[in-house]
């Protein structure tokens, strides 16, 4: 039974570049979440989809962060343009329905130089 898959596991970008992170949720799950994790801020919600519809886009992250769910089994998070402060671990999670436990991927560690 495949869990949540995230690619790449590590990404290094120059300031100003565009990067795209990918996520495949658990098959059959309806909810998909993107989080950013840093030591200082902890876990912050970037985007939340339910049945491919965007439910929340994380307010402060709107301008340079864009998550999309092209189909029920694939989501992307685009950061454009990247800044050094975007260096963090980006986690994708999915769940069967509202309120059910969330299954997390291993994360993508992004370093912006």
């Amino acid at each position, binding site marked *: 039974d495949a869990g*949540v898959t995230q690619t790449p596991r590590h990404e290094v970008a120059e300031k100003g570049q565009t990067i795209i992170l990918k996520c495949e949720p658990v098959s059959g799950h309806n*909810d998909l*979440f993107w989080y950013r994790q840093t030591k200082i801020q*902890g*876990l912050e*919600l970037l985007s*939340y989809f*339910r049945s491919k519809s965007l*439910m*929340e886009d994380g307010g402060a992250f709107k301008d340079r962060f864009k998550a999309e769910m092209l189909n029920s089994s694939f989501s992307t998070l685009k950061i454009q343009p990247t800044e050094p402060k975007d260096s963090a671990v980006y*986690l994708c*999670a999915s*769940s069967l*329905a*509202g*309120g*059910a*436990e*969330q*299954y*997390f*991927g*291993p*994360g993508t560690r992004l370093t912006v130089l």
Partner: protein
Amino acid sequence: TQTVSQSDAHVTVFEGDSVELRCNYSYGGSIYLSWYIQHHGRGLQFLLKYYSGNPVVQGVNGFEAEFSKSDSSFHLRKASVHWSDSAVYFCAGDSGGSNAKLTFGKGTKLSVKS
């Protein structure tokens, strides 16, 4: 505003000791609380969740948590820890229904010494 707070950034115990990791919350309405564990370099894994009813919730690997409305708390406990329990533990809350997003505490790093 919904907040979840974990007062201890780091807890150190010896193998075989009991441990309690603290979580307090502030929510305007209904709240459903969870605990997640994160081993180094990995994603988060679900431990347990309180919905309603019996305030003591049993989770995986011998963990349990107790919900207290009067104390606004949801502390995680384990009677006898193993070195493999060393990880970061996150308390999280959601308001249920159509809004499934989690609000996380900052996490408590548990170090188990042998």
